[in-house]
C-alpha cells in the first residue's frame, strides 16, 4: 500500500449536468503501468484529464470527490496544488501530438528553459539523452534545427513524450499515444514505456487490447463512467457482461 502514488476517492465528473465519471475510487501504484480500456465515451480520457486538471480547460465541467497525490509519504489533494506544479508532476501526452512552432531542438529546450538554470551544454546533454531515450536521436540528429512540424506523426509523438519527460514528471498520463502510429513506432513507444515504469507511474488510455496486454501491470475496464473490472488478467478472464461484450466473448 505504501507504493500508492495517485489515489482517487469518490470522483464524479459531469459535463453540462451529464455524468461522465460516476463515483470512482481507485489507487494507481508507483512503478506500474495501468491501462484503461473501454468503449468510446465511457469516460477514460475524462478520468485522465481530471488527474492533472487539464479537464478544467473544458467549459461547463463539474467535478466532485478527491484526487490525492503522494508527497513525502503523505497524500495531498491535487486541488491544493497549483495547476502549474501539478502539471509538472503529472505530465500528459495526448493522442494528437502538438509540437510548438520551433525547431526540434527548441521544442525540447522549452521546458528546460522554463524550469532549469542549466547552462547551454548541460541543456544540450539533457536534450540528447532524452532523444536517445525515445529512440529519436538517430533519426533527427542532423536536423535538430529543422522545424518540428515537418516530422512524421510517430516522430512528433516521440518528441512530445520526450518534451514531457524533460519536466521530470512523477506520473505520466498517455491518451491513446499509439493510435495513429505504425507498428514500428508503436513498438518503440511501448518499449520506452516499459523502461520508464521503473522511474514513474504510468496511466495509459488505449483502445488496443493487445497493447494493453503487452504493457499492463493492471488493466481497468470502464463503462458508463464507472470502473467495472480491474486486475491483471481481466482480458483473459473477464467476469462482467459488459467486459465480455466489449471483448466480443
Amino acid at each position, binding site marked *: 500500500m505504501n507504493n500508492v502514488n495517485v489515489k482517487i476517492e469518490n470522483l464524479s465528473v459531469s459535463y453540462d449536468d451529464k455524468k461522465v465519471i460516476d463515483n470512482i475510487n481507485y489507487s494507481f501504484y508507483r512503478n506500474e503501468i495501468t491501462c484503461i480500456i473501454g468503449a468510446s465515451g465511457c469516460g477514460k480520457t475524462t478520468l485522465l484529464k481530471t488527474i492533472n486538471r487539464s479537464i478544467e480547460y473544458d467549459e461547463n465541467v463539474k467535478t466532485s470527490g478527491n484526487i490525492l497525490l503522494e508527497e513525502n509519504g503523505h497524500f495531498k489533494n491535487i486541488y491544493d496544488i497549483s495547476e502549474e506544479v501539478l502539471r509538472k508532476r503529472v505530465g500528459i501526452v495526448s493522442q494528437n501530438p502538438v509540437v510548438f*512552432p520551433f525547431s526540434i531542438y527548441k521544442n525540447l529546450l522549452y521546458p528546460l528553459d*522554463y524550469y532549469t538554470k542549466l547552462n547551454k551544454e548541460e541543456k544540450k546533454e539533457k536534450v540528447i539523452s532524452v532523444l536517445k531515450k525515445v529512440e529519436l536521436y538517430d533519426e533527427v540528429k542532423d536536423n535538430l534545427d529543422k522545424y518540428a512540424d515537418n516530422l512524421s506523426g510517430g516522430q512528433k509523438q516521440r518528441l512530445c513524450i520526450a518534451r514531457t519527460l524533460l519536466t521530470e514528471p512523477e506520473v505520466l498520463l498517455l491518451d491513446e499515444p499509439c493510435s495513429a502510429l505504425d507498428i514500428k513506432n508503436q513498438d518503440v513507444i511501448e518499449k520506452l514505456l516499459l523502461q520508464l515504469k521503473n522511474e514513474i507511474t504510468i496511466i495509459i488510455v488505449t483502445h488496443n487490447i493487445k497493447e494493453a496486454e503487452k504493457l499492463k501491470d493492471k488493466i481497468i475496464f470502464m463503462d458508463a463512467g464507472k470502473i467495472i473490472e480491474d486486475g491483471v488478467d481481466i482480458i483473459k478472464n473477464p467476469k462482467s457482461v459488459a467486459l465480455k461484450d466489449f471483448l466480443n466473448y
Partner: protein
Amino acid sequence: MTDIKEKIFKNIIQVLMVLTLSILVFLFYFLIREAMPLFDYCKISDFLFGTEWMPVSFGNELKFGIWYFILGTTYVSFIAIIFGLIFSTGIALFITFSLNEKLQKYIFAILDLISAIPSVVFGFFGLQVFSPIFFKMGVKTGNCVLLAGIVLTIMILPFMINSLCMTFFKLKKKYLIAASNLGIDKWYIIASIIIPESIKSIVLSTILANCRAMGETMAVMMVVGNAKVFPHLLGKGETIASLIALEMGTAIKNSPHYHALYAAGVVLLILTFVINQVVRIIGRDSE
C-alpha cells in the same frame, strides 16, 4: 456538371479580380491625370518639400508646398498606430486569455458597435472629452496632433482588436493546452509562443489600420487644429486628407489649386503604400 460549375465560378472570380485591379489602376491614373498639370506651375521638389501653401494668389506668387501636410499625416498616423498596437495587443490578449466565453461575446458586440459609429461622432467625442483636457494642459484651443492621434487610435482599435483576437484564439486553441500541460505559466506561453507566432497578423492588422488612419478625414480634421505649420505633438497641424476635404469645395476646377489637391491625393496614396511596406519589412525582420 461539377466541372462546368467550377469553371464558371473560376471565371467569375477571375473577372472580378481583373475588375478590382482595373479600378485601382484607373483610380491611380485618374489622380495622376488630374495632378500632372500642377507641375506646369511648380517643380515636384517644391511641391513635396515646400513649406508654404498659398493656392490663391491675391497678387502674390502661388505656392504649393505640402511638406508640413506630409509630416502632419505621418505624425498623426504614427501616433495612432503606436498607441493602437500597444492597446489592441493588450486588450486582445486580455479578451482571449482572461475572459470567459460569455464576456467575450459581450465585448465583441461592443466592439462591433464602436466600429459602426460615424467618424464625425468620434470628432465630437474628441472635442468634448479630450480637447478641454489638452486646453487645461496649456494647448491653445485644445486641438493638437496628439489629440488627433488619440481620436484616431480609438477609431482603429476595434478593427485591430478583432483581427488580433482571431489570431490569438487560433493559437490559443492550438498551443495553450499543450504547453500548459507541461506546467508552464500562461503568460510565459503567451510571451514565448503566442506573440512571436502572431507577428504576421500583427503586421497585417497594422497595415490595414494604417490605411484607415492615413485616409481618415473628418474626425482628424475636427481635432487636429488645421494650421499650415510644422506639426508638433502638442501643437496644431494638418493632414493631407484634411487639406483635401477642407479646400476641394472652394478650388476652381482646372485651377492650379485644384490640380495641387489631386497631387496631394497621389502623395497620400504613395505615402500609405510606403509606410505599409516599411511595416511589412519590420514585421518580416522581427519574425
